[in-house]
């Protein structure tokens, strides 16, 4: 069964590989609480009144984002498999021609 052309499937493979590598790395950096990524945390507008509160909130968001990155990475593994399969189908078709 084939539903992507050769170019789209190749594009899918490349983005998937890139996505897996970058998202796993980003997940890891969120997991170790990288300060460089703090700008991308959704810390909300509500004022934190003391440091402890801030730390718990940031901690929660850091782990959440880490897991989200890994979920996206897993989705990209799935995408990789699908586009790889499509790529294989396309190639096999062109071979037989």
């Amino acid at each position, binding site marked *: 069964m084939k539903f992507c052309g050769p170019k789209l499937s190749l594009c899918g493979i490349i983005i998937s590989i890139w996505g897996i590598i970058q998202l796993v790395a980003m997940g890891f950096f969120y997991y170790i609480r990288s300060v460089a990524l703090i700008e*991308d945390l959704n810390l909300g507008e509500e004022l934190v009144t003391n440091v402890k509160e801030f730390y718990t909130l940031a901690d929660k968001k850091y782990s959440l984002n880490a897991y989200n990155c890994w*979920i996206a990475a897993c989705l990209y593994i799935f995408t990789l498999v699908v586009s790889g399969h499509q790529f294989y189908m396309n190639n096999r078709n062109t071979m037989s021609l």
Partner: protein
Amino acid sequence: MGSLFRSEEMALCQLFLQSEAAYACVSELGELGLVQFRDLNPDVNAFQRKFVSEVRRCDEMERKLRYLEKEIKKDEIPMLDTGENPEAPQPREMIDLEATFEKLENELREVNHNAEALKRNFLELTELKHILRKTQVFFDEQEGGLHPTESMTRALISDDSIARQVNAGPVQLGFVAGVILRERIPAFERMLWRACRGNVFLRQAEIETPLEDPSTGDQVHKSVFIIFFQGDQLKSRVRKICEGFRATLYPCPEAPSQRREMAMGVMTRIEDLNTVLGQTQDHRHRVLVAAAKNIKNWFIKVVKIKAIYHTLNLFNLDVTQKCLIAECWVPLLDIETIQLALRRGTERSGSSVPPILNRMDTFEDPPTYNRTNKFTSAFQNLVDAYGIASYREINPTPYTIISFPFLFAVMFGDLGHGLLMFLFAAFLVLREKPLAAKKTDNEVWNIFFSGRYIILLMGLFSMYTGLIYNDIFSKSLNLFGSHWHTNYNESTILTNKNLQLNPSESLDYDQNPYPVGLDPVWQLALNKIVFLNAYKMKISIIIGVLHMLGGVSLSLYNYRYFKDRLSIICDFIPQVIFLVFLFFYMVLLMFIKWVSYAPQNDFPKSPACAPSILITFINMVLFKKADPLKNCDTVYMFAGQRVLQKFLVFIALLCVPIMLLAKPIYIMRQQKDKHVQLVNGHATTENGDAEGAGRVVQPPQPHAGGHDENEIGELFIHQGIHTIEYVLGSVSHTASYLRLWALSLAHAQLSEVLWSMVMSKGLILDSWIGGVWLWFVFGFWAILTVGILVLMEGLSAFLHTLRLHWVEFQSKFYKGLGYAFTPFSFEVILNTAATAVEE
């Protein structure tokens, strides 16, 4: 060993070839591809040359091959491309080839002709079959009546006329049946109506299946029609109209039994024809498959033969008609190889007299030949696109190989984007052979492929500068641990929005810099851009001045090579002094500023007192005095700076008139001296030989003198333009290098915007749905990153780098007035032939 620093030394050679051996020798030289032949009979037109008939025969063979190829492509038979390169065949083999092609072509033409005739026949029969079938329907529709045409009569002729003619028996109605193109039906119908005043009756039915036109091979839709009429006059009129509309008429018997019989006959004939057609197609296919195996090989052979005869046409015949004389440019280093190839050619042709390669002296400028390999050729192309180097001039390519990717990377500094670029180029480089074999006519792909080594180096250098700028997709890497620390307590942080870190406090700052590149703390700082601008602007100017100085120093090698001592003294030295005393001094000021002002220092060496380099430089050139800032004693960075600056500017400005006038004045004086000597010499000889009777005294040449004056004037103008260009150029080119900073800033900002506007949006959802959302957003972000940041920004940085090299760097030493060496090479000829065929 040839080097890339200068073009090869070339020699003009005369080549004497035995007429029998000439063909084989030229063929060997074509395989070698190191010789550029000159046309020795430029005033003879193409039809009067010696080997015209051979060239014509080759053209004829090419035409036949192209015909064959077209037929092969029509049948979609794969052509075998073994990639082998057969040698140019002997002239006597040409006859064999010609015979083969002739036979193939004739066979194919005959087969095609037969196939066409058969197809036409087939078409006619099919049309007849359809007519019989459709008309059957028309006739069947007529209910009752003894005669099939009787009901028609009733429809066509009013009742009273029937009544009148009732005694004369049933009216004899004629009809014609035929086939016409479907789109012509409306016009046809109207025409019939008008021409016959409505006295004919037309029925038509569409043929559902499209029919093949035998001459063009197109599929056409047609309709069957049948026209009833009365009388011969109408009949001839109808026939004429049918003819005019190119309808084909077929005889259609009136009686149903006859029609049935005819239909049966037509069916059997169609079946017979089908078998014959199938056999014809099979035969054609066999012929073409056999030809497809060899056609590439034949093409190469014919192209080579043709190229050889074209080259032989450039040669001169000597008086005895025994040998051909050629003139050619050859690289000096390859003379041995060429001799060897010539000897091989002689042996192959069985001639006993060896060819003679004779070096000639010439005043002509030889062509420029830079020996390149697959790595350097891309860079050489960048330089050649500006202008082919003059003969034996310094070739900028070896310097470009490093400076080009470096300047690119300064503008494109991002570890992530550089990595993407590097991986793409690495893929191209690693899979070079299979990709090169897979010839594609995709222009963009070919540009990337031929520039793969440039892209590889650009990617690699961008990764380096990205590391220095500490930028990876606009984020920073904290590889070694930041050297800045916060020591504010909880309440300060909670109550203040912006806080400063003091570099003079050892608690805040470690007092030694981050080991490699920018401290990652800057990514979170609000004054990041202010800091980076100062840093990158200075870096750009430093790189630019060094780049220009490099260019000026290269001109020294040119002058020394061409033994132009005058230019060294009058051009090179003042140029260097001008550049060093003004602009390199500014670079030194930057380093002094970096070194001597530190945060712990007290006034007047505190950073608050550090003067702006640009203002200092402007004041220096304008001899203007500036007021010191508060608490700072002076605007100068070191003692004696004011005097030194005045001295530097004075000397630099002094260089301008030297550049402008020294060289022309010197040449003018030299010429005057020569003239005086000449006149004096004349005078003495004249005096000495005064008694010699009948001695013809040469009149002084007024023409030559006028010419000299012209030349001097030209020299002044030329030198003036050159000097103005250099002096103004130094200023504007230095400023022009600021594009390094501007593009780098733009790139960093754009990638930051892309991250915060796209990627951040994927990270704000508060549940696991965020993962799915991130999956989508990341894909979008990745596509934008490649499309905008890597491709578009990369292209813009590439173009700016190209400009920096062509204008700012090469204007300092490069003339680029040469012409390229275009050797006679089968490889080049075959490649151009291949691309021409693809187009």
